[in-house]
């Protein structure tokens, strides 16, 4: 059993409409692994939230759900709403444009022949006209500082460059929420620092899964701790990351 930590419940009055709401989400993989056992959380527009927890806590599974990538619940319920839209099959095209999902491994995220094609992929599949697609590709490659590699194959880029391009590939869809899986994993200190600086400038609502607690402290004022498929703590980053018992109990203390 995961330890339950009491946190002050967020005030329900005067709370703005959440951009992201998850209510009692359960998920079991086909092989019988219960990955999520009743996850509930709510994120307001503009909030920057960290999702921390040990390996196998269900963070990645939760993130895949936000984009409807693991199918809908069989009972027809819709436990997730994004910007007021329930995540159901007919809504998926809209949802996927609103939730910009950046996977951990850029070699999975960048699958097109060139960097340009990759950044253009999202907007093209949203059905935008070519002129606008070009405009967005130029805008977002400039935003992440990668304009000069537009014509290159992503295989030739460094990991730091690939991570930046990966972020541009979802920014070009103009998402409301950015969902990032381990954005700083594997980066050298300088590339990591410049990536954090880039993320700090982005205005979108953010949900970031990370083991990099320093990044969490710097970038994300609110933290949600997951373990064994449940949310075990949710509160201000400064409070939670100062709670050594909590960190200890969930394999986060280094």
């Amino acid at each position: 059993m995961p330890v339950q930590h009491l946190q002050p419940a967020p005030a329900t009055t005067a709370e703005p409409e959440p951009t992201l709401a998850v209510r009692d989400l359960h998920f079991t993989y086909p092989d019988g692994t219960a990955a999520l056992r009743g996850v509930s959380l709510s994120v307001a527009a503009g909030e920057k939230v960290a999702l921390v927890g040990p390996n196998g806590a269900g963070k990645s599974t939760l993130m895949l759900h936000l984009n409807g990538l693991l199918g809908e619940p069989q009972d027809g319920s819709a436990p997730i709403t994004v910007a007021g839209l329930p995540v159901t099959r007919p809504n998926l095209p809209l949802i996927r444009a609103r939730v910009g999902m950046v996977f951990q491994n850029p070699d999975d995220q960048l699958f097109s022949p060139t960097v340009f094609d990759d950044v253009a992929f999202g907007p093209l599949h949203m059905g935008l006209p070519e002129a606008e697609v070009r405009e967005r590709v130029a805008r977002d490659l400039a935003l992440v500082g990668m304009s000069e590699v537009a014509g290159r194959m992503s295989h030739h880029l460094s990991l730091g460059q690939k991570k930046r391009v990966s972020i541009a590939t979802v920014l070009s869809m103009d998402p409301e929420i950015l969902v990032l899986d381990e954005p700083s994993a594997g980066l050298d200190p300088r590339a990591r620092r410049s990536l954090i600086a880039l993320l700090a400038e982005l205005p979108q609502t953010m949900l970031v899964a990370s083991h990099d607690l320093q990044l969490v402290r710097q970038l994300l004022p609110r933290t949600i701790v997951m373990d064994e498929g449940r949310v075990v703590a949710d509160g201000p980053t400064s409070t939670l990351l100062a709670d050594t018992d909590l960190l200890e109990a969930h394999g986060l203390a280094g």
Partner: protein
Amino acid sequence: MLPTAAFDRYLHGESLIHRLDPRVKLVVTMLFIVSNLLLPDGAWLAFLAAGGFLLLGARLAHLPPGYLLRRSVLALPFALAAVTVLFSQTGQPLWAFRLGAWTLAVSDAGLLRFASILARSLLSVQMAILLTVTTSFPDLMHGLRHLRVPGVLVAIIGFMYRYLFVLADEASRLLRARAARSAAPAAGQAGGSVIWRARVAGSMVGQLFLRSYERNERVYNAMLARGYRGQLLTMNPHVMTARDWLAGLAAVLLLAAIQLAGRLAA
């Protein structure tokens, strides 16, 4: 890491050939190959002219002399598949030898046909090499797409090119991991029996397959997350200019002249 530089060393040239629209290059390459196939056996003048056409292309692309020929040697073993025509054509026997119970005779007609097939395949392969060293892969794919090659086929080629290197890196990491643990005792031989070694190699191939399969699922998720719904869309970065039309036309006329020369001489 695979030395990808070896693949596209001449890709970034700025020659006339490099700047031609990929569609023109693709069509001319296909026509050149078809033209070679249509030339009658023994039309040496025409084969020579086709060689001249190729040299002109290589010259215009600023490739080092002999570069295409050297690369085309790789394809030579495949031309040897035609070696049976030496014996199967009826004609004046030039040379015969006994192989067990059979007598094999090389006929003049067979030799003529074999030499012609060799010439055709060498010329065609060199042209294909010229195309790929002067056209970047993405351009080539855009060209194919504009020429109405089915989108799924082009997408498969694209994914192959994108993940070939990733997969090769993965394989070399596996090999390195094996090498790092393949120590030998100070005296005696390293490793177990051949069967044991084969089993290790087999499970490495299996590993590679599983990893690729898992990557396939992750890439597909990444595509879905960015709005993929079963139809791959791309943009058209190429516009045919007057120069492209002219170069294409000139190439077609030259090929027609080569055909004519081959037919008249025969």
